[in-house]
């Protein structure tokens, strides 16, 4: 007895469906095969076009040329660092010349400054004059500076003495 006897007889309708399914599977398999081939070819082509090695070589060449100019880069960095520090010092150091100038400007000509101390937070000075009026002008000038919030935040008259001449001692707090 033969072993290859089909014991599950096909109906005609089923046979037709079977053949159709087989055809679809074959079409799909061929399509996928073609798709795989085409996509592989495209990928191969694209990869061959991407010349990353030559770019890397070019980068190395340019980099070695830049490396030869390291001394210039270092000098630029040093100049920049130094200028940054210089700007910092100039910006933050107190302007003593301006403070002295303001005191001299506000002092009438017949008033002489006998002693003057300037620190980072205050200016104190002693002034002398034969004219009480001029001493008054000096006081007025300083008080108006406090009102205008120009240089000083507070003025304190330490003393006013009357002898051969008029002497005053003033302490001004800097803004």
């Amino acid at each position: 007895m033969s072993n290859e006897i089909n014991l599950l007889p096909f109906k005609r309708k089923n046979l037709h469906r079977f053949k159709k399914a087989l055809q679809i599977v074959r079409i799909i398999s061929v399509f996928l095969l073609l798709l795989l081939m085409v996509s592989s070819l495209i990928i191969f082509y694209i990869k061959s076009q991407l010349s990353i090695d030559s770019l890397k070589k070019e980068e190395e060449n340019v980099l070695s040329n830049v490396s030869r100019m390291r001394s210039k880069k270092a000098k630029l960095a040093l100049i920049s660092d130094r200028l940054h520090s210089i700007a910092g010092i100039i910006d933050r150091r107190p302007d003593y010349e301006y403070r002295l100038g303001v005191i001299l400007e506000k002092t009438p000509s017949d008033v002489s400054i006998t002693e003057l101390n300037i620190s980072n937070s205050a200016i104190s000075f002693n002034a002398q004059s034969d004219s009480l009026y001029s001493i008054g002008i000096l006081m007025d000038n300083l008080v108006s500076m406090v009102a205008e919030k120009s240089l000083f935040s507070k003025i304190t008259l330490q003393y006013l003495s009357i002898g051969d001449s008029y002497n005053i001692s003033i302490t001004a707090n800097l803004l």
Partner: protein
Amino acid sequence: MKNKKINFDQSTIRILYYKYKEFIIPMFIILVCVTLFLKVTIPQIEDISHIKDEEKTIKDSINILKKDLIFLGTLNSENLDSELDIASTALPPGKDFIGIISSISKSAINSGVKLDDFRFSVGELSTASAKVNTQPSLQINLAIKGNINGVKDFVEELAKSFPLSEITSLKIGDSSTTLVTVFYYKPFPPIELNDRAPQRALNKKELDMINKILSWQNEEESTASPSSNF
């Protein structure tokens, strides 16, 4: 109800094989294609994407390096040395005693005051600002003789002379004026160079600062006289 049992014995497998044997090759091809697509093609596509990214990065890097190369090529070494000299005169890398004495002397000459004496306090960080900024400085106590206008001129001259200095206190008395000054210096810092980092030129603020230093130097040289006032 009758239980339906499926019996996969050899004859059943054989029957199924003969029935569906035409499907085996196409199904195998589909399986292989799908597997290859998932395991080979998709990673290759991703790889291309990475390569393109890398290519873009390298191209950008090359562009930056080429720009740097052109920029560095246009820089004149002598100009750079000169600018570094100018900056180092203003803020020397070490304790420039000669520069300090010269600066004090020139300021005194130009302002018409007489220098009494001065004392160095080596290595002291004297001002609050100096401490905050860890800027090394050299403190010098100065005594000068002159009227208040002369003192003002001296302070002005000193502010514009180099090495850079800062007055921390000023006392004008009957006979003389005492000033506490600090002269700044700054050792050259270790420079870590990155060849790939884009190189920038000196900005406007930095160029203005060089010009300011130069103008102060020129002012000082034009007003200085060869005689000493000690």
